[in-house]
């Protein structure tokens, strides 16, 4: 396993990039600690796969350098970097048995005999593939094939890092649960640096200790899943993390008061007056729907029963607002009141979180 440093790194697919917009990945500096579990999370086109391909050596950066344990590997190939990769679609040799598939990366590096056999069996055991070791890979289901891809990455004990590019896309929801928790267990056992690219917040948040949220070629926030949920430092993160995302409402904020759709809302902290675009953010989890008259008046447009909870779609003035309600809640009527959990309310200026004064 290796510590990976990205220094002044940027990439453009254009041969002669002119402005910022020509860069799929804008200049970043970032460190991945040895043995950490990371996720790169963002929508299509945010630069996450570009970043992954730069680290693996599939792409050479337009600018900057990549260091593995302090050694500059920018010009080295994937093989020289000793990186293992798992892609969206399983990469297995259909005609080989599961055993031979797992043994392949070791045989390629001259490992044989007892060392090879015991390692292959150990990995097969970790992944629950022992029973199918002698079967040809072509007969296996998509999730079993993806386990083999995983196993082929894990089998080399000396890899500097494992990179995952949307590895669960082709897996059924039920099996995703299994593979995801297995991957997390594997990370604990092998302690390799793992970097997982996905647009799916559940996969990113549950797998990684540190999540790197990307948007438009930039890193917008780096944090633990809890930090991203509790204190999104940009309205984009608030929207992107959480399902549904944070409610973001235009507001006028001065002192310890926000005015939203003509209603005054008290705040926990003091804020300067500003001419910047100002919004308040509150997650649907922290808005409470109450009886008429016990908060801000809203119109209830629709209630979606999604099983585990209900989602009330309401409007405050003309502003749409999502409110999460318990599965047992009985709701009636087309008007109600909402209360905001004040400690969970954030103020944003030009999209960026601002810290008020106590």
């Amino acid at each position, binding site marked *: 396993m290796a510590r990976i440093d990205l220094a002044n790194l940027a990439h453009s697919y254009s041969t002669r990039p002119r402005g910022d917009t020509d860069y799929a990945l804008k200049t970043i500096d970032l460190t991945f600690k040895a043995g950490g579990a990371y996720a790169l999370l963002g*929508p*299509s*086109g945010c630069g996450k796969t570009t970043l992954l391909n730069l680290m693996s050596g599939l792409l050479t950066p337009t600018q900057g350098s990549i260091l593995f344990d302090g050694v500059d590997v920018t010009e080295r190939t994937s093989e020289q970097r000793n990186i293992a990769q798992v892609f969206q679609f399983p990469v297995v040799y259909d005609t080989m048995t599961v055993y031979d598939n797992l043994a392949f990366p070791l045989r390629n590096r001259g490992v044989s005999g007892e060392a090879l056999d015991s390692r292959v069996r150990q990995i097969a055991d970790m992944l629950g593939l022992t029973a199918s070791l002698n079967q040809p890979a072509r007969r296996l289901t*998509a999730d079993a094939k993806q386990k083999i891809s995983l196993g082929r990455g894990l089998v080399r004990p000396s890899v500097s890092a494992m990179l995952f590019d949307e590895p669960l896309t082709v897996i*059924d*929801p*039920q099996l995703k*649960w299994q593979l*995801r*928790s297995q991957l*997390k*267990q594997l990370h*604990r056992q092998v302690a390799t640096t793992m970097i997982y690219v996905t*647009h*799916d*917040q*559940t996969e990113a*948040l*549950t*797998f990684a200790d540190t999540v790197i949220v990307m948007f438009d070629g930039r890193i917008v926030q780096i944090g*633990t*899943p*809890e*930090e*991203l*949920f*509790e204190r999104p430092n940009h309205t984009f993160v608030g*929207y*992107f*993390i*959480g*399902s*549904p*995302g944070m409610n973001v409402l235009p507001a006028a904020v001065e002192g310890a008061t926000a005015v939203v759709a003509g209603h005054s809302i008290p705040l926990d902290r003091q804020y300067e007056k500003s001419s910047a675009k100002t919004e308040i953010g509150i997650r649907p*989890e922290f808005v409470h729907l109450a009886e008429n008259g016990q908060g801000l008046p809203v119109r209830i447009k629709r*209630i*979606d*029963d*999604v*099983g*585990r909870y*209900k989602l009330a779609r309401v409007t405050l003035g003309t502003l749409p607002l999502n409110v999460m309600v318990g*599965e*047992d*809640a*009985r*709701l*009636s*009527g087309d008007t109600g009141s909402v209360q905001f959990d004040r400690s969970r309310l954030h103020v944003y200026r030009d999209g960026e979180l601002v810290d008020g004064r106590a």
Partner: protein
Amino acid sequence: MTLELRNVTKRVESETHVAGVSLTLKRGALNVLLGPTLSGKTTLLRLMAGLDVPTEGQILVDGRDVTGTPVRKRSVAMVYQQFINYPNMTVYENIASPLRVARVPAAELDRRVRESAALMRLDHFLDRKPLELSGGQQQRTALARAVVKRADLLLLDEPLANLDYKLREELREELPKLFAEIGAITVYATAEPSDALLLGGNTATLSKGQITQFGPTIEVYRRPSDRETAEVFSDPPMNFMAVRIAGGKAHLPGGAVLPARGPLAGLVDGDLTLGFRANHLYLRQPGTDAIPVTAKVAIVEITGSESYVHTIFEGMRWVALAHGIHELSPGAPVELHLDPHRMFVFGRDGRLMAAPNFAAAA
């Protein structure tokens, strides 16, 4: 209009893809086909479309047998997982293409293209080429092209599967409204239980080529008619345990006893299976009738606001979904609370015997 499948079976060589499916769908309603990969969703859609002919059984439209009628003689539009657009045509021409084939007069064509585009919120992109659009807009273009035909039957095969999570969330919210405006018989195939719940309408659960249940989506979720349906319609997977009913109480493996309350009241002595969802396996006592058991932590997944605690109890793997952050070490003991009021009861044949009583949505 109605579409009726009467005892439809499809075999390819020796493999049965769909087995004895009977189903009646009515105009205006959104129907979800929910099932894992290879459960028969795509086969069923192709049979409904007339792209394939059933090995046995009949397909009727408004009572008229159309079993052998090919797709081009039926009023069908289809949208696939991999959105298909003509890359060198504008969005306008993409949407117009089925009408050009049908030689629809120019004025009517223009009106209908603009109408469908507006419905799919594409009005501002009509002059663009598909590749200049986001994935969501490209899929909406494919949807608009399907809608513009005004077919009686609109079939969608995992139309959101290739889209980013957030786009999916937005389209899932918009689509039911759009489908209601179109007024066709809409059939939407997906492997994701959350798709079905957010889309609403009716859901048919599919398992191994058979429909296990068909009804209003939330009712199928709240009262799955058998264990198979409950498994298909649960994400995270439903937790199960085998119990023995004796003296009216449920005896668990390991010796714990659940009182005969809620769905467990009045059960006859014998062996049964209890099922309960992850959010109903508690880390804190939820009510006075709940009982504690001690399980072992396998792994904890934290989403930022909630924790999925994977546990092992008497050899059974259970997932608990708890509010807040719970950092528990693998291998550590954890106290779990089982609430009889939240239990599904399945008989030895897998049929549902009793279900929790939930408040209905307003």
